[in-house]
């Protein structure tokens, strides 16, 4: 009896394809709903039964980026004609735009803090992982376990000490404070993941570089880093996703200058009724950077999570 790997029959392919599409539909449903809600008018967004086919509107996005105030019909009529589509949409609701909202600013905070802490985690994590992988370090295993143990409790369990500490140190509501905090949480993940990747890189590559007349550091960044790119990319994605989505510490430690998007988006609800399209618009925009980042690095990510299982 002999077995061989055969191509799946058309029927099997069809079946597998259907399964995948069904699964994708189910998991993508919330995302699709958020995307749709962002383009609905507020009445459409809360209509029952829910509207799947609707007249798209940019009202949610306009509301997200602006602050508005209600004016009397007489005052409205006295105004010059609307200068752009945004003003037109707002005036249809008997309101005028009085200025930008804080969303842009909060979003930038998220970008600075998210990417900043990701960069710092990866930078420190790569150096530490390299040292753990290549050098003889006393108590290496204990140190590695110690680093991992920082992940063994939910970070929020130390929220109050951190809150008090940050207040004393003046780190509350600062970009630096949030970057340090997210880096502290991510660094153990980064060290462990990256150590695994660097362990897989044969030492001979660096040794060849040493022999070729390069210093240890040159060998590290000219030979090891390019080899570790896959691991760095996938680790960076995990770090970014955590820092980007983190909510609890952001609520607790930021309120103004350094507030990130996650605690900001729900506050939209409090302003002038349940403005679901604006919330959905905020969520949609918020999703984009991680999506773009992941798509850019996805080739590395796929290789990253199977790294070690399959030898090149």
């Amino acid at each position, binding site marked *: 009896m002999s077995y061989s790997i055969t191509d799946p029959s058309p029927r099997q392919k069809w079946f597998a394809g259907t399964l995948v599409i069904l699964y994708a539909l189910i998991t993508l449903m919330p995302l699709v709903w958020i995307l749709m809600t962002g383009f609905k008018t507020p009445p459409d967004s809360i209509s029952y039964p829910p509207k799947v086919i609707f007249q798209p509107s940019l009202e949610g996005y306009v509301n997200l980026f602006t602050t508005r105030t209600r004016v009397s019909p007489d005052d409205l009529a006295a105004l010059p004609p609307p200068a752009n589509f945004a003003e037109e949409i707002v005036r249809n609701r008997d309101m005028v735009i009085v200025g930008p909202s804080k969303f842009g600013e909060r979003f930038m905070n998220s970008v600075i803090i998210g990417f900043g802490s990701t960069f710092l985690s990866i930078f420190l994590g790569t150096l530490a992982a390299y040292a753990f992988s290549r050098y003889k370090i006393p108590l290496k295993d204990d140190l590695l376990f110690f680093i991992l143990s920082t992940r063994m409790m939910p970070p929020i369990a130390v929220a109050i000490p951190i809150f008090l500490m940050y207040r004393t140190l003046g780190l509350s509501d600062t970009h630096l404070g949030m970057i340090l905090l997210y880096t502290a949480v991510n660094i153990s993940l980064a060290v462990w993941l990256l150590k695994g990747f660097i362990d897989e890189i044969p030492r*001979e590559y660096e*040794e*060849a*570089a*040493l*022999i*070729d*007349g390069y*210093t240890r550091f040159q060998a590290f960044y000219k030979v090891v880093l390019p*080899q570790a790119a896959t691991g760095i990319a996938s680790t960076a994605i995990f770090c970014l996703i955590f820092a980007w989505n983190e909510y609890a510490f952001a609520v607790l430690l930021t309120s103004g200058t350094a507030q990130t998007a996650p605690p900001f988006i729900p506050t939209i609800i409090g302003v002038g009724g349940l403005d679901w399209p604006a919330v959905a618009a905020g969520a949609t925009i918020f999703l984009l950077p991680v999506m773009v980042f992941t798509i850019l690095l996805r080739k590395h990510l796929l290789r990253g999570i199977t790294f070690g299982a399959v030898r090149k």
Partner: protein
Amino acid sequence: MAEIIIENLQKMFGEFTAVQSSSFTIEDGEFFMLLGPSGCGKTTTLRMIAGLELPTSGEIYLDGEEVSQRPASQRDIAFVFQMFALYPHMKVGQNLRYPLISQGMGRAEANAKVAEVAKILGIEGILDRPVGGLSGGDRQRVALGRAIVREPKAFMMDEPLGALDAEFREHMAEELRALHDRMGATTVYVTHDQLEAMQMGDKIVVMNHGVVEQFGTPQDVYDKPATMFVADFIGAPSMNFLTFAGSVRPGQDTVELDGATFGVPRQIGAAQGDLVFGVRPEHVGFDDASPYRGRIDATEYLGTTQIVTVATPNGDLKARIPSSEVVREGESVGLTFRAETITLFERSSGRALRSELNKEVVADV
């Protein structure tokens, strides 16, 4: 090019002694083999010469300069790794150029040098290819190219043929030796394959358990083994050991095995107790007139010669005789040995006894 002198080199990994007080000299332009079973410390020795490991104690003189504690980058030595270790993110040409750039060589000059080396090795056609898709032989050539492009003082090679398949290995060994002869570069080559060592080396160091057992030309190491380990490790099949109890006095030139007298090279030292009579399979002859008899247990046909296993009163023995001689399993035969080739060993220490044969290579103990 350079002469390399190793003096009392020692390497400890914690409690474990990887290399124990080794001393030998590699002369300028020599193709030098470090031979031994795995774990014997040969690779560690090579890595210490290259600067990839720092010795615990001892000196390494490279061209008269003591370099044992210097980093690899300052020793001007090239290294060919067993797995080749070509930079996987670079193309072949970039791999070859990389050692030159570290020396601050200009782009045009480096390219000219790379082209020259590529021509020597016959890899001009693949300079723009990524190293990933190369065949084993081409990888080997690129690894060699990366080593020779810089014209270093010496080459270190760590089982460079180990990753190739048997058929190709032979061919590459010839190519390697030809390349060495052409460049005249001092080469230190690690291998566990005694045949490879005999075939390619000008000199061989045989190591075991971190200790240098013997150091000399392939002929010396083969004909005049200093220890039973060397006699056993070199040659296939290896030297036969017939154990006997007896004594040896200076000037003696015969020993008795089970009542039969055999000639041996004139002995210089004295020994007594359990001794070993060492004879290479090709120096065993069959002669029915001989009083020393054995029973043929097995024969192995090898083309022009055959290997015959004979049970003797002093242990099993293998003889390499022409295939034309007809022998039958179970038959009793008389055995003769070529007297001038015999080495006697002290069984407890495994050391060869000094005789007229080996007095130049075996130290007085």
